[in-house]
């Protein structure tokens, strides 16, 4: 047992033009980054210089021009397996997370894509399982309707088990060497039993990959999602804004994992976090404000989710009418740059009061004194509400360590609001501070993503000594 302090895990949620809806308008942003693989590789190498555990490629299975308002970086981009394999070719150590949806794929395809990516990347492949929260995807896959969550998870549960069996279908060492007459040993390559949803004979058309099982990630708060994650995932993403619910979720997942015979350390909980960091607090707040200044506000009569470009974007309208609803107090009719009087806080509902706290935490502006909260701040807080931290390197590291030390996080999936600036500044300013505190690696401890997460390489369940080893463990 090592005496080293518990170590943070960091990932980069990779949207080429930034995770902020207006990140692409930042002066240094590359507005056409989504299709510039050389640039995407360059940014990934910045994260790799920062010793990040992984780069994360999300996915959606439907799009609409209206997404340009809320999620321009998600509207149109490279398919994640293609992007992931290309990023693997341009990097050497960072884990590569590819999102793939069991609702719209077959297990054989997914098993071989990840096995292949794991071989090509020398053990850095990872599957982020999403079951399809996006109802519009059904329209692109010949489905009459969006499946219910139960139906999706019924399929996903058996899907994941089948994929793992396929990954195991070639035992380690089943490949022969050229000095043998046979290139493989049929006795160590196995077929699968048919399941309820799937009938997959196997074996996979590839030998066991470097990690044995590529790393599995999952996100979600529903009962079925928590169960899938606790049973099958090596890491779980969350998106809590406040620490109390994050702690409750963390404890719940770890408890469920133990019920599946796993240890708490077998599963890492990684909340998302948008860090805005600069050498000084004032500079960081200025960046935050400038990013938000690029947001187009909606007319006062725009209805939630129906912005100026269409109706698919899920984000709330950016106007005082929406802010009034969210804060529970009528703030319509005011100029955006006017100061909000303290009475508005008194009149706000609980969510609204929490949001006032968030505005102050992020902008350092208050209802009284020097820097004052404006109505513009209310519109932005009501429409763009993500877990974020704004500050100098010590302040950002404090926030991270607070969650890390208090049962809310084993690490973070970092959302770079603007690219490459937010990646570079985090690596340059915050990473050294975390390393100084002894809670973050100064170098990779091994070549594979499982190594980064401190996970052992699993044996094939078809290996002769598999059951015996499980009993001993």
């Amino acid at each position, binding site marked *: 047992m090592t005496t080293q302090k518990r170590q943070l895990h960091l990932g980069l949620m990779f949207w080429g033009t930034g995770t902020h809806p*207006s990140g*692409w308008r930042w002066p240094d942003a590359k507005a*056409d980054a*989504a*299709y510039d*693989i050389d640039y995407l590789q360059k940014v990934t190498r910045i994260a790799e210089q920062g010793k990040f555990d992984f780069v994360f490629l999300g996915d*959606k*299975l*439907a*799009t609409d*021009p*209206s997404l*340009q308002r809320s999620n*321009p970086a998600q*509207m*149109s*981009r490279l*398919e994640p*397996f*293609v*992007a*992931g*394999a*290309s990023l693997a*070719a341009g990097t050497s150590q960072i884990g590569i997370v590819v999102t793939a949806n069991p609702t*719209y*794929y*077959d297990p*054989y*395809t997914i098993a*071989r*894509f990840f096995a*292949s*990516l794991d*071989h*090509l*990347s*020398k053990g850095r492949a990872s599957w982020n399982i999403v079951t399809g929260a996006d109802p519009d995807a059904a*329209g*692109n*896959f*010949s489905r009459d309707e969006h499946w219910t969550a139960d139906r999706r998870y019924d399929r996903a549960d058996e899907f994941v088990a089948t994929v793992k069996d396929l990954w195991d279908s070639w035992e380690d060492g089943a*490949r*022969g060497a*050229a000095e043998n*007459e*046979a*290139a*493989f040993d*049929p006795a160590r390559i196995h077929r699968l039993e048919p399941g309820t*949803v799937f009938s*997959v*004979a*196997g*074996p*996979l*058309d*590839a*030998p066991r990959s470097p990690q044995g099982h590529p790393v599995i990630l999952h996100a979600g708060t529903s009962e079925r999602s928590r169960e899938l994650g606790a049973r099958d995932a090596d890491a779980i993403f969350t998106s809590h804004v406040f620490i109390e619910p994050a702690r409750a979720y963390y404890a719940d997942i770890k408890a469920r994992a133990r019920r599946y015979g796993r240890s708490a350390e077998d599963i890492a909980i990684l909340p998302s976090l948008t860090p805005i960091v600069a050498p000084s607090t004032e500079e960081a707040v200025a960046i935050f404000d400038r990013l938000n200044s690029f947001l*187009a506000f909606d007319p006062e009569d725009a209805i939630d989710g129906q912005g100026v470009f269409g109706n698919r974007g899920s984000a709330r309208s950016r106007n005082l009418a929406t802010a009034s609803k969210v804060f529970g107090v009528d703030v319509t009719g005011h100029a955006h740059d006017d100061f909000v009087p303290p009475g508005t806080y008194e009149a706000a509902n609980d969510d609204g009061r929490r949001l006032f706290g968030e505005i102050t935490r992020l902008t350092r502006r208050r209802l009284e004194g020097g820097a004052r909260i404006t109505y513009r701040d209310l519109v932005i807080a009501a429409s763009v509400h993500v877990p974020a931290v704004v500050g100098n390197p010590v302040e950002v590291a404090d926030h991270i360590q607070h969650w890390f030390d208090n049962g809310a996080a084993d690490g973070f999936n970092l959302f770079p609001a603007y690219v490459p600036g937010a990646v570079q500044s985090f690596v340059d300013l915050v990473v050294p501070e975390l390393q100084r505190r002894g809670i973050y690696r100064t170098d990779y401890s091994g070549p594979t993503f499982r190594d980064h997460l401190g996970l052992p390489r699993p044996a094939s369940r078809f290996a002769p000594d598999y059951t015996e080893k499980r009993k001993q463990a």
Partner: protein
Amino acid sequence: MSASKLPLIIGYLYEPYGSHPSGWRSPQSAHDPYDVDDLVAVARLAEDAKLDFFAVEDRLVADMSDPASPSRATRTEPFTTASFLATKTSRIGLLVTANTSYYEPYNLARLSASLDHVTHGRAGWTVSTGATQPADQNYSQSPLPAERHYARADEAVDVIRKLWDSWEDDAFIRNKATGEFVDGEKIHPVDHEGEHFRIRGPLNVARPPQSQLIVGHAVESGEGEAFAAREADVVFVTPGSIEEGQTLRQQLREKASAEGRDPDSIRVIVEITPVAAATDAEANHLVAGLDALGGHAPGLVVVGSAETIAAVFAAWAEAGAADGFLIRSAVLPAQLRAFAEFVLPELRNRGLARSDYDAPTLRGNLGASPIPNRLVA
């Protein structure tokens, strides 16, 4: 009989263990398909030889029937392999085989369009179907007759072509000053309602750099010929003789004409394993050594010195029996290197092969025409 256009198209078929069943056991063999550095080295050899494309084939099943012949049992997946190679190469075309019987068209459209972006317009898709590459047992399906697989392929290719077109080339505005990112009028749903698929669109990937990827098909049946005549830019064939090749190419050109296509837009590529050495005797000795280990190289095999092999290529071209060749290597990487070092210079001397790439895209190098957007009036 229409003569072949010169120079010929020369592509490479990557077979992880070589085309000879015992190629991987040859003393000359130095290739581990699961060592990515070996894979990259082979692709770069093909690129240095200025070959038109590097094709990654696929089967979707592990055929374990012959442990001595591993090429049918195992391979890396084509899209991930080609995407990885995209960054490790810069000029050579990258063809992936993908089977329309076992993929959703929306996923295939995303994968292929994205491959064209990361290769900067060097991607091609060899369409296969469950008719000749059955994988029902791994896809919870029951076997279907060939015509059903081809009916699905027809519809899949049709809707994928529309999805590739769903973003006009200038759909992106990306004006930082005004905040306009895209022009919604230039992003089109496809609203496809067919026998097999209902797909609304648009695709969530920008229009590929080549607009439409190069489409290939390996013909093994009448259904395959009809499909190729409708859709394929390059057709892979395995005739047993020059005469068979002549007939097959003529048939394909006529069928393409009957589909309203320019017959020169369908390029008939003959699969061939050239076993090259400095002399005919050495080459024959090589083959004898491989055969002694077990098996024979399948399909068309030509064994000999550069002159011998180039003469065969020339005869096929003169007879109008091929628009090009898909090179298979009996032993990796030795026989690819031998082809590049011995045979290609001779082919170039005879005007049969290019000495450099003409264009940045695969479509350009193949001399294929640009394609207008079918969703724009």
